[in-house]
């Protein structure tokens, strides 16, 4: 079992009446709500929290990409990843990831990820999401009808750029480059492990199976709603004759742990409500640009009656009050033993070997985030760490340089 400490970097000062006064946290959020001097402190505290998680023994620290988004302050996750590459020792650096179709040429992604892999001594996990409609089609103006084709083409170019020693020409449908020859090259050979954060699309499942990439389901709505999607993934894997190795999958879960359940309920209510009320206030008009979802996926969803596990449907059915957040398992709350038991069940039920944990969420401050992180690492992680390891090998984890051959950054950088 692997534990990845994930930060969304939410802006923590959205006003109390945000939902009433503002139609959307995303795309056209009012920039006058953004105070750069407050953001200076937020960024530094968030980076402290990620570094603290690495010190506490989490297997990886994890960042992702959002644009024009009040709950995700990382338009460039690579900037944060590069500072973590210096300031952390053994933890993997999971960039989950870069939305490939947004980069022209996408060799930029190949270069930056190779840089992070070099700086970190081979600790990078390379995440390649298509990206949400809000990020890609609206904030970044990409055509929804060509987004996926561009994404697949960018992927092909990046893999070829990482693995081909010779300078080559790339003549794609969307990308033309006469001289592809990235410099630097990644430490990990043939390339860093590739993880694909995705919704519930059949094509993505098949593609992950074919390419042997990790499929990550990043839902904000917990294990109860996530179960249908993960079941769909494993059923597709079985149809394709792939073994049910839990490390072939990742799953995101919010967790709040305290010494007792009563204390946890007291501590985590406010940040959870902040997240589900203010951060997920997304205007539904940005949910489904025409052409973003393929006809095959629409047919599959309708015909198989799979609950459409997309952000849109999640938001539509989303609960915001505290009791519903708890009852629906959006956030797992409790004392250490209770949380460990629930997570054991989640991991076993969903057959997931990579648990991506949001232990900072909403407007949670650094002190509470670090308390949550420390308690989790000391009292929850140990009892779950060996789960799956008797049967399965994690073939999708970074293959870093041995610690003794790695550079030692100056103490001040740590």
């Amino acid at each position: 079992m692997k534990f990845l400490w994930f930060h969304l970097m939410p802006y923590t000062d959205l006003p109390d009446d945000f939902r009433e006064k503002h139609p959307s946290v995303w795309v056209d959020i009012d920039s006058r709500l953004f105070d750069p001097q407050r953001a200076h402190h937020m960024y530094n505290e968030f980076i402290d929290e990620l570094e603290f998680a690495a010190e506490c023994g989490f297997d990886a620290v994890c960042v992702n990409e959002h644009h024009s988004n009040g709950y995700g302050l990382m338009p460039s996750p690579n900037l944060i990843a590069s500072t973590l590459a210096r300031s952390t020792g053994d933890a993997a650096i999971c960039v989950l990831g870069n939305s490939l179709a947004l980069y022209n040429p996408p060799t930029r992604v190949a270069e930056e990820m190779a840089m992070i892999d070099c700086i970190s001594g081979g600790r990078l996990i390379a995440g390649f999401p298509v990206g949400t409609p809000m990020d890609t089609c609206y904030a970044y103006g990409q055509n929804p009808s060509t987004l996926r084709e561009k994404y697949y083409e960018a992927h092909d170019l990046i893999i070829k750029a990482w693995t081909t020693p010779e300078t080559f020409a790339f003549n794609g449908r969307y990308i033309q480059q006469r001289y592809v020859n990235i410099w630097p090259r990644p430490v990990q050979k043939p390339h860093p492990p590739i993880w694909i954060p995705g919704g519930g699309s059949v094509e993505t499942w098949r593609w992950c199976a074919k390419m042997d990439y990790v499929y990550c389901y990043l839902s904000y709505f917990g294990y109860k709603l996530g179960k249908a999607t993960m079941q769909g993934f494993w059923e597709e894997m079985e149809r394709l004759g792939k073994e049910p190795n839990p490390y072939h999958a990742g799953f995101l879960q919010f967790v709040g742990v305290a010494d007792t359940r009563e204390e946890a309920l007291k501590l985590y209510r406010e940040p959870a409500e902040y997240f589900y009320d203010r951060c997920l206030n997304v205007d539904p008009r940005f949910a489904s640009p025409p052409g973003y979802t393929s006809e095959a996926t629409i047919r599959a969803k309708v015909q198989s009656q799979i609950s459409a596990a997309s952000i849109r449907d999640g938001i539509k059915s989303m609960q915001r009050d505290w009791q519903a957040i708890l009852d629906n398992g959006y956030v797992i709350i409790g004392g250490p033993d209770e949380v460990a038991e629930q997570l054991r069940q989640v991991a076993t039920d969903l057959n997931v070997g990579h648990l991506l944990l949001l232990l900072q969420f909403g407007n949670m401050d650094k002190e509470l985030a670090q308390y949550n992180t420390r308690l989790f690492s000391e009292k929850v992680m140990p009892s779950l760490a060996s789960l799956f390891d008797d049967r399965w090998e994690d073939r999708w984890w970074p293959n870093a340089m041995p610690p003794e051959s790695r550079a030692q950054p100056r103490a001040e950088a740590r």
Partner: protein
Amino acid sequence: MVAERHATGKPGTAAGGGAMSGPTERNVEIGGLPCRVWEKGEGEPLGFLAGIGGLPKWPPLLERLSADRRVIAPSLPGYPGALGHDQLDTQLDWVLATRDLLCAAGLEGADLIGVSVGGALAAEVAAIWPTMVRRLVLVAPLGLYDPDQPMTDFFAIAPKTLPQLVCADPANYDALVERPEGADEVEWKIQQIRAASAAARLLWPLGDTRLAKRLHRIGNPTLLLWGTEDRIVSPRLAEKFSAAISGATEIQAIPGAGHLADLDAPDAVGDAVLTFLGRA
């Protein structure tokens, strides 16, 4: 990847009204993929390229026009009855596909009506191939971008709000897209989504196809019709089209009609078109 084709409308079943007989239907191939061509009436051919959403059904305007003219309505790639929008990557691809479609439908040198999305492409064909079009009718054409009155982003709207955006009376759009008895529920829905996707492929994100660079090449007599209640593009854009087109132009407002004036006011639009074509 190309989805397999599912039948959408058959002759006789396509008509909106009970007593009307529908158009005849045939398919032509554009880039190896089928595009539906509907045809009805006698006399000189009159082409029709539809607006947002295309033609899931034979609409009242075409029924009316077909009493006077041989109306031919080819479906643009991705529009109801047609595939292949996902093969079109550039403006050149779109414009060539439109020209090929008009030729295959038997509309070379014919009068041509283009509404909304269809208007943007009809204007391109008239600009680039002067002999392809005889007289041109543009109904609230897209393709220009005016920073002072930008196109409403109809690709970013709350679910179920499209009808009230494109028609002054949403019931007119609802009637066009309402699933007829016997039509497959999933495929009927996918047909609408595909049409929206095709329009997005051409127009994303601002609706600016750089048509402005080519409008001056249009030497045809051109009628510009615009619904006074257009909530997608301001009727004031008619002046910009008129000023840029070098042929003789005429602007006529359609009172009370929305962006798809052909759906809101088929009689007024039909009268204006037939008067213009009868006179010029």
